[in-house]
């Protein structure tokens, strides 16, 4: 994939966001009106593919490089670090995969009674934060520090809103519905999945604070901003996990 100029990158980011938003709305509609699991899984996979390619730039892993490149150079170490990060994400996805398997093993095609509006709400907030994160990274790539700071702060705020929404509103409301950690396996799975995800969001927020601070001190440049790239890819990874956890918890199956 060739390098995009500033306006092309903006157009691509917006377009991908629109696709993701439409797919999420479609997903919600499919769950209510049709309830087809195949369709829901397909939509989740398409969203996953879009984020993986356009926001996480997975293709950068396959980039060819000069065979005589110096192993001590920044460019070489950057590619190695990128590989390391993706290996970490692969490993981490086995935690989430195990949780998803446990959810279907224990609950099958049923789901806990949860507040649908809240679920859709936090999902939208996370999706919007992913878009802002993409804008922040693209801004740094083009040396636009002002927008980098703006969009990183926005991502941070949306991430905080997501955590507050899940831990502060969603959890008490679920408990009020009788879905508590200790009442049933369904409650246990719900708190475990959302809790593990929220834990990752919180670590992502820490990375965002770090790049925001270092960015505002001028430590990143369009050529050298591995910290920004790593925090971005990690943030999108958190979004990818939610792309699967949201339908698994809120949309698939009959209400218990």
């Amino acid at each position, binding site marked *: 994939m060739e390098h995009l100029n500033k306006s092309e990158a903006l157009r691509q980011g917006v377009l991908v966001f629109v696709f993701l938003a439409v797919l999420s709305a479609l997903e919600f509609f499919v769950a209510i009106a049709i309830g087809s699991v195949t369709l829901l899984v397909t939509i989740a996979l398409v969203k996953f593919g879009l984020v993986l390619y356009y926001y996480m730039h997975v293709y950068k892993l396959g980039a060819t490089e000069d065979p005589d490149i110096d*192993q001590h150079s920044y460019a070489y170490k950057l590619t190695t670090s990128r590989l390391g990060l993706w290996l970490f994400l692969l*490993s981490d996805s086995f935690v989430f995969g195990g949780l998803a398997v446990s959810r279907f093993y224990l609950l099958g095609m049923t789901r806990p009674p949860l507040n649908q509006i809240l679920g859709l709400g936090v999902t939208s907030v996370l999706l919007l934060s992913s878009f802002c994160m993409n804008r922040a990274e693209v801004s740094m790539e083009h040396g636009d520090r002002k927008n980098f700071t703006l969009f990183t702060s926005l991502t941070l705020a949306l991430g905080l809103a997501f955590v507050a929404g899940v831990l502060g509103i969603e959890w008490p409301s679920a408990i009020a519905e009788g879905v508590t*950690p200790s009442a049933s396996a369904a409650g246990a799975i719900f*708190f475990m999945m959302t809790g593990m995800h929220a834990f990752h969001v919180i670590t992502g927020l820490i990375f965002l604070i770090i790049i925001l601070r*270092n960015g505002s001190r001028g430590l990143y440049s369009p050529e050298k901003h591995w910290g920004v790239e790593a925090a971005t890819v990690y943030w999108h990874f958190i979004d990818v996990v939610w792309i699967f956890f949201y339908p698994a918890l809120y949309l698939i199956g009959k209400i218990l």
Partner: protein
Amino acid sequence: MKKFFSSALWHGLLWQAIGWALGASFVTLIRVLMGLKPFATFGFTEPAWVFGGLVGALSFLGGSGVLTDWFKWAKGEETHENHQDPDGWEKFINISLDHKVIGIQYTMAALLLLVVGGIFSLIFRTELASHGLQFLSLQWYNTLMSLHGIVMIIGILLGISGVINYIVPLLIGAHDMAFPRLNAFSYWLAPPAAILLLSSMALGGFDTGWTGYPPLSVRAPVGMQMFFLGVIVAGWSSVLSALNVIATVLRMRAKGMTAFRLPIFVWAAIATSIIALTATQEIGLSFQLVMFQRLFGMGFFDPAKGGDPILFQHLFWFYSHPAVYVFILPGLGIISELLPVFVRKPLFGYRWIAMSSLGIALVGFLVWAHHMYTSGMNEYLRVPFMYSTLLVAVPTGVKFFSWVATIWRGKVTGPYPTAFLFVLGGIVVFLMGGLSGPPNATVATDLHLQDTYWIVGHFHDTLFGGYVLPFFAAIYFWFPKATGRRMNEALGRLHFWLMTPSFIVLTLLMMRIGLLGMRRRIADYDPSLGFDPYHLVMTIAAFIIALSVLIFFINFFRSITKGEPATGNVWNSRSPEWQVPSPMPAHNYEQPFEVVGEPYDYGLADSVYVKFAEKKTGGRN
């Protein structure tokens, strides 16, 4: 002593104790404020112990200083890769970024844990020497038996990381691992993990065996939680170390080292790392779920709440079966790596061997439920898992075929070196383990064999032949590379000839009484079964093995200072690390090398494997 009290290890331990106390006190304070019971049988309550244990492990990392560079990065400060370690022994108890130092740290930690695990087994083996309870209580028997399992497993994992860390960068011509700080971090997770595991003894122990199945693990004493925490911390060490190995092999190879010119041990390291990187998360997850079930009453495995204990077994074995391939693949890699050096012949079927390691690793992901034939899982799952398990025998058979064909008409002149003896011993013992495997994989016979001493004999054979004996071979073989001296051959041979035959006797008797109905993991047995003499012989064999290990340690520590100097290519190996003088300098090869031929063309004239770049002479500077 002064050096010890200023070391990273000591600071880490100190901070772990402080963090543990603070964490536990914090939870206790909150409990007081909430009006809950602040203290229980073991002083603090269970949540306080668990939180304290977690904070303690994190404090160890902070206190030892292994995180310092990352904190600096977060603050936007530059760091340099400090390879200027001191010359003395104190570098091994301080933070080092040099993969060779870390490799030795891992190996020493592994040897220590293997000794601790071995002592546990000697204690309960003595108890088993005759029927009835002699000197152990049931709870202590169970705790020692469980700890023997897990301490040995963690010891093996550390030993694997040790050999891989030391050897792989040398074999591929890298100046270090891809992520030196992460490498140090992975190692420094091990000491707090070991302390957490062993602390379970002080907190009532645990009686589940190393598998920790609920519902028993939900009811076991607080020690259970320390076991879970310890395994989770050690698991992260394994995951991150595997990540590093894969990145190193993919990114740091010398020029010309294409996939099929990689040394066979590197293939094994890759295969083992693929499993460790991914599947390890599932054992961590399964243990975390039980921890949370105990702490918060979450009903994952509680049928009364709609949970299912079988789910635990699926998650647990999804790691814990492939884990045995994590243990043996590097060992089998060492066998394939060393055999051609000693018999002076090319390795037979190089590509098949390389692919068989990957094959075992990948098929290994699909066999986990063969541990669960009697668990009550759906019966129709038994047959596919039986076939996938039997499939593992194919790539394993490929390895045996290659070894036999490599040894065939090999030329060994003079007395067999100790490392070669251990390689041959590894092949024989692993063959016993391999042949006793299919009966357990086959549903019809496993229903009888499940949870008997047959199983105990089987897996001890696979782990001894697939890991312990090759690990000793690797130590005898690469000891001169690390120290510039050789280990004593006479003591080495004594070590081998005491250890291997007694081990074979031990496991054959285990299998025999297993077939006759001896259950595993029990503290006592019925005298009318007539097992007393067998158990007595097994106990004697176990003590002979312990004696041989003692001889090994005497040899090991004596040879570090008094061994016969060996700075050259002692084994007449083609491998690049032996083409330069021992011990290796800090950044490995002073001149980079290029791979120009096949790695295992032993005995073939004119075949060159690596060519070192010319020393820059003359000119400016």
